[in-house]
């Protein structure tokens, strides 16, 4: 099934199995709904699949209040660029409630939001803002790259005891794959998955960029370079052990993501991996990410700012250059 169908199935089964679950957001009820929520209000009623005014702060705030009272709300922020309106509720209420009240209250909400990059929708309908929320203690940040992961991770998020931000890359909506139909199927948060095994270099990625990384790995294979593709799946919690396992074997890493590179998720990932594997790495870790510009609307310009197969291949080749190989300090002497 497609990723849209997988997300729909996760929501459908969560609504079916637990009365505490309800959905709220803009244009999520029939007949205005399209995408993963289409059909759900017809099946479960408009009290459980609730259209709201265009009020992002109140959508997330209401989800928080209902969650404090025992519900498991799934709020939808239609496009991630709109999440700034709700940022105060996420950052100052949802993320901090458990800590600030010494565990007396908490906000187990899920906020689904679509990442629109790549649709020529311009600078305010295209951003990958996950780094904002990785930076906030108390939030979890999740983004699937396959239909199977979409279903398994969304199911986990809905029933997780912490506030989860769930990013849905819209360009993967039509992607097809096998999805377990079992309502109990869930993927734990904080477990990365090797999407393609390899031995020469690890491409560390998540979300839409995983698809690009897999294509790049195919291209590299034709040149005899074996690239492993590690899909993080969740940014918080972050599966450091999986990164260390993979890069510990390949000794080279390239981080690939659609978020802006500067101060992006890759900066943290790179810092962690180099700290853990400083003596093992054969080359500096490369990053391939969106350029530091507002997203341009024209397709040709927009595609030029995102990670492409060409940019990923070039970064991998950079890590493989002979002059990048670390010299052995015991033989060459310590420089500097």
């Amino acid at each position: 099934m497609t990723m849209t169908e997988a997300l729909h199935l996760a929501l459908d089964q969560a609504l079916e199995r637990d009365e505490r679950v309800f959905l709220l957001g803009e244009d999520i009820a029939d007949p205005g709904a399209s995408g993963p929520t289409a059909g759900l209000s017809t099946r479960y009623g408009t009290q459980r699949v609730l259209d709201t005014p265009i009020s992002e702060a109140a959508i997330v705030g209401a989800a928080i209040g209902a969650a404090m009272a025992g519900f498991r709300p799934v709020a939808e922020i239609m496009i991630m660029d709109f999440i700034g309106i709700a940022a105060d509720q996420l950052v100052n209420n949802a993320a901090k409630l458990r800590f600030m009240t010494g565990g007396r209250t908490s906000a187990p909400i899920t906020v689904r939001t679509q990442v629109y990059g790549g649709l020529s929708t311009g600078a305010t309908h295209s951003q990958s803002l996950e780094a904002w929320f990785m930076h906030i203690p108390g939030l979890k940040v999740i983004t699937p790259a396959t239909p199977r992961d979409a279903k398994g991770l969304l199911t986990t998020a809905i029933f997780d005891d912490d506030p989860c931000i769930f990013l849905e890359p819209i360009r993967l909506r039509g992607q097809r794959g096998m999805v377990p139909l079992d309502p109990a199927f869930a993927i734990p948060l904080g477990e990365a998955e090797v999407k393609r095994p390899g031995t020469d270099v690890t491409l560390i990625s998540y979300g839409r960029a995983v698809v690009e990384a897999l294509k790049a790995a195919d291209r590299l294979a034709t040149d005899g370079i074996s690239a492993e593709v590690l899909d993080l799946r969740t940014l918080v919690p972050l599966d450091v052990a999986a990164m260390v396992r993979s890069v510990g074997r390949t000794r080279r890493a390239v981080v690939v993501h659609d978020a802006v590179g500067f101060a992006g998720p890759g900066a943290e990932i790179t810092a962690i991996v180099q700290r853990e594997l400083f003596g093992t790495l054969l080359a500096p870790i490369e990053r391939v990410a969106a350029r530091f510009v507002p997203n341009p609307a024209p397709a040709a310009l927009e595609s030029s700012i995102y990670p492409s197969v060409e940019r990923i291949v070039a970064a991998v080749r950079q890590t493989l250059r002979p002059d990048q190989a670390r010299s052995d300090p015991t033989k060459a002497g310590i420089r500097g």
Partner: protein
Amino acid sequence: MAGTPNDSTDPPDQPGLTGLTGLTGSSDPDDRDDLASLAPATARRLYELMTLMKTADDRLSRGISSGELLTVYWPSRGQEAIAAAMGVCLRSDDQLVTTYRGLHDLIGKGVGLVEIYGEMLGRQVGASRGKGGTMHIASPGVGVMLSTGIVGAGPPVAVGLAMAAQRLGLDRVVVASFGDGATNTGSFHEAANMAALWDLPLVLLCQNNLYAEMTPTEHTMKIEHVADRAAGYGMPGTRVDGNDPVALVSAVTEAVERARAGRGPTLLECVTFRLRGHYFGDPMAYIPAEQLAAATEADPVLRFRARLVGSGACTAGDLDTIDAAAVASVEEALATVLAAPPTALTEIDHDVYADARNCPA
């Protein structure tokens, strides 16, 4: 001039000066009939709560000033009548979302002084084991679900709590308490619209103390009264003397009953004054001396005391006994808190996530 209900002759350079006109917790003899509308036990309970709120504030102020107590504090002194009215009108299962200026609200809703002082002073016995601080006190057992440090952040959460009550078929009511400044935020607007749209069991209780931090309220909104905003949402808006506990009980009761009956939210504007400014230590240079003098004259606690005695509802001796009990409660709570262990350093590692293993290193 904003804040001036009936009088167009006030000098425009004295913002808010007349905001208390006719809203002074009056000790006028005509009010004796109003007072008689309350059951004697209710009148007494109002005074008990108000004097406890005042005493708790006074003690903090004295302790911070002398260096005995180390904390930050946004004083509620002067706004006691509103919280006391809430205290006698709400059931224990009704819920409250309040703000950083919440000492009076917390006491009104029944949070213990040890929990409050403990939280303010960073002790393990605090409501949040000392981790939340003065601005972030919650005590769900008595219905205090959230205190926010961000102006305007509470009403959306109160909407969600009210949605939960409605969905569960419970007849509990949620009160969102906030200041006049909050009504200028987008969050307030979004929440008020949603609450009205869905007929939620919510009371939007605005404690209009005539200043949004250091700025006079009338410099922040074109309309005269916060309550007038209610019409824009399709809900009733009521303006009431926030220093008159009798008028407040009547207004809060009406709003709560309306919400409890499933007839939707009310915006209740309670006009009052902050006698100690925005934060403790605020030099209040921005408050005209005449306005502060008028507000001090209209001190709701002292006025209510005079009214109770003047009407014969209570004797001065009765009230002295209540005052002494408040002092004893406050001193006992403070002694308990000061003897309690400070919040342990290890508390930092708890409650970031449900499972600490999810925390990045």
